[in-house]
């Protein structure tokens, strides 16, 4: 099997809590993404999606313990902690955050802030770096005459574009976007998503889009992984997830999302996710599930193949599996 650009294998993250307790935020997550592919990482708050991608970047706080393998072009970047991950950060893997307002230093010009990572990582310097900054800004749809502007002179949408330009500064092959459009209006959201898709298509950039917004993923990504309580409960091509969901959580999440063209009843999912500072016994979704049976209480389902590139972690799904 050919290797993908990024392959995450059995990733775990624990956070230290007071009184020698631990929170098992990410519980054995595996996924991969190849050049030019667009993967959605979907789930509700607290499901571990942001922790997962921060682990890929080596950006978790010191209270976190990470286990598992993160292979970038076959090299395990987690093997020796900071020493192996630092050379890749921003250079091979870059990230765009939700609050584009906080991505920039308010008292420095946009242009200088685009040049800085290039000089820091030895990608380019001086006039070359400045020319590249201008190019990057144009690439994300901002006139290069605005290099001399300060962040406050940009609107929210422009700041998010500039943040994407900054992430591209060192020529990464993988872009992690954490809720990149959540704070933006729907028209600006459409502009940013269009930009992300074009970057993947034109530059062959691999994209991981982290969001709670299923319709955004449905229209932007080709495949997605649905996370619940620290694990991936279903993953597969976007089309299969919507038209043939095999995990009840995926099905209910779609049913909880209103759609412009659907008159279906919008349902809520009763209950709350389990606490991750305790051992979860059985299926973590069982208390909220509408098809749970005896086996779900006792045995935690593992992710199993249910279709073409389509996996689900559900005892009920196994019964109908191919």
């Amino acid at each position, binding site marked *: 099997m050919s290797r993908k650009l990024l392959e995450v294998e059995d990733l775990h993250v624990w956070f230290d809590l007071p009184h020698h307790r631990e929170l098992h935020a990410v519980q054995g997550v595996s996924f991969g993404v190849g050049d030019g592919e667009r993967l959605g990482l979907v789930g*509700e708050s607290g499901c571990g999606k942001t922790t997962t991608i921060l682990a890929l970047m080596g950006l978790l706080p010191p209270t976190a313990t990470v286990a598992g393998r993160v292979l970038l072009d076959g090299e395990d970047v987690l093997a020796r902690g900071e020493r192996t991950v630092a050379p890749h950060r921003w250079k091979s893997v870059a990230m765009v955050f939700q609050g584009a307002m906080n991505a920039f230093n308010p008292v420095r010009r946009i242009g200088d802030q685009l040049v800085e990572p290039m000089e820091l990582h030895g990608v380019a310097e001086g006039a070359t770096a400045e020319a590249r900054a201008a190019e990057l800004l144009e690439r994300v749809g901002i006139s290069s005459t605005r290099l001399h502007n300060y962040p406050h002179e940009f609107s929210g949408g422009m700041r998010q574009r500039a943040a994407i330009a900054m992430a591209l500064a060192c020529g990464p092959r993988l872009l992690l976007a954490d809720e990149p459009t959540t704070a933006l209006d729907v*028209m600006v959201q459409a*502009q940013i998503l269009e930009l992300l898709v074009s970057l993947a298509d034109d530059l062959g950039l691999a994209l991981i889009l982290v969001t709670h917004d299923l319709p*955004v993923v*449905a229209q932007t990504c080709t495949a997605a992984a649905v996370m619940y309580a620290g694990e991936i409960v279903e993953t597969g091509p976007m089309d299969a997830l919507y038209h043939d969901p095999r995990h009840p959580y995926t099905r209910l999440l779609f049913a*909880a999302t209103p*759609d412009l*063209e659907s008159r279906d009843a*919008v349902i*809520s999912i009763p209950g709350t996710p389990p606490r991750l500072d305790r051992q979860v016994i059985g299926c973590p979704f069982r208390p909220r599930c509408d098809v749970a049976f005896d086996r779900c209480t006792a045995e935690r389902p593992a992710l199993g193949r249910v279709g073409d590139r389509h996996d689900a972690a559900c005892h009920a799904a196994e019964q109908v599996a191919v």
Partner: protein
Amino acid sequence: MNTNGHDAASPLLEVEGLVVRYPIHRAIVETVVRRPKQHVHAVSGVSFDVSRGEMVALVGESGCGKTTTAQALLQLVRPDAGTVRFDGIDVTALGPRELRRLRRRMQIIYQDPYESLDPRFRVEATVAEALVVHREGTREERRRRVVEALELAGLSPPELYLDRYPHELSGGQRQRVAIAASLALGPDLLVADEPVSMLDVSVRAGILALLDELRDRGLAVLMITHDLSTAARFADRICVMYLGRIVEEGPAAQVIENARHPYTKALLSVVPRRDPRRRVEPQILRGETPNPISVPSGCRFHPRCPVAVDECSTVDPELRPPAGVGAGHRAACLLAGD
């Protein structure tokens, strides 16, 4: 229910020609050189009404004036022009004392249940606060009404919640407490400003269903939202706002399926659909909403409009029923009839 002799058949809330401007502070030098005073034209002539048992959604992007409109209805900001009639009474003409009496009948809930609840108050105190402020009932009566309100807001059994603090509740439960607090006084109108945008997807539907149920019980609900999908599914009527004006309004299904204003059409085309196979050619408007200090001449949408003609830069179109639409559907576009 208090009707004050007002015709029960006419809408509970009638807003007409509402205008709200915020002055921009001039620096002292600008004042000395008599630079003209500038204003942010947040709301520039908005009219609509909401009946009992009806949910109206005010939809638009940030800065379109939807929240200012809501605040002006409750006189939380004073409008510069226009009237707001509540049950036949013009609330813009009321003094503080009469306004206070009326306020118990019009309540608002906010976007962020993490900020709108006082972290030091237990649920009982939060829900009872409005009753205390309005000197309603004895301690026992207040407790009974708190319990009723919690039950109505879907927090049952209420006894389980009375002594809890906000930090012990989930986001959805907090929003229910906020709704219970607004229901305690038995209002006739509930204004919900982005009631679910801070909540997780799995609990949103529960809150929206609750608003739906309150509407069925005869409450008038005005929902402020940026989410067209939510408005489409839950509201009876939709008013689309752009730069301080309503540009299109009508029954929800009609506005969604037969939009006539180019702004509404563009907005609908960029709303992501759940079904990955359902691709709509997005009609992405370039640039961003102009700033409301210098509003464009003529139709305020014309600089970004994909179909604008010369006339659009000079004529400010009125909201009127275009040809071939159902009752109550109006659009403010010169070309809407074509």
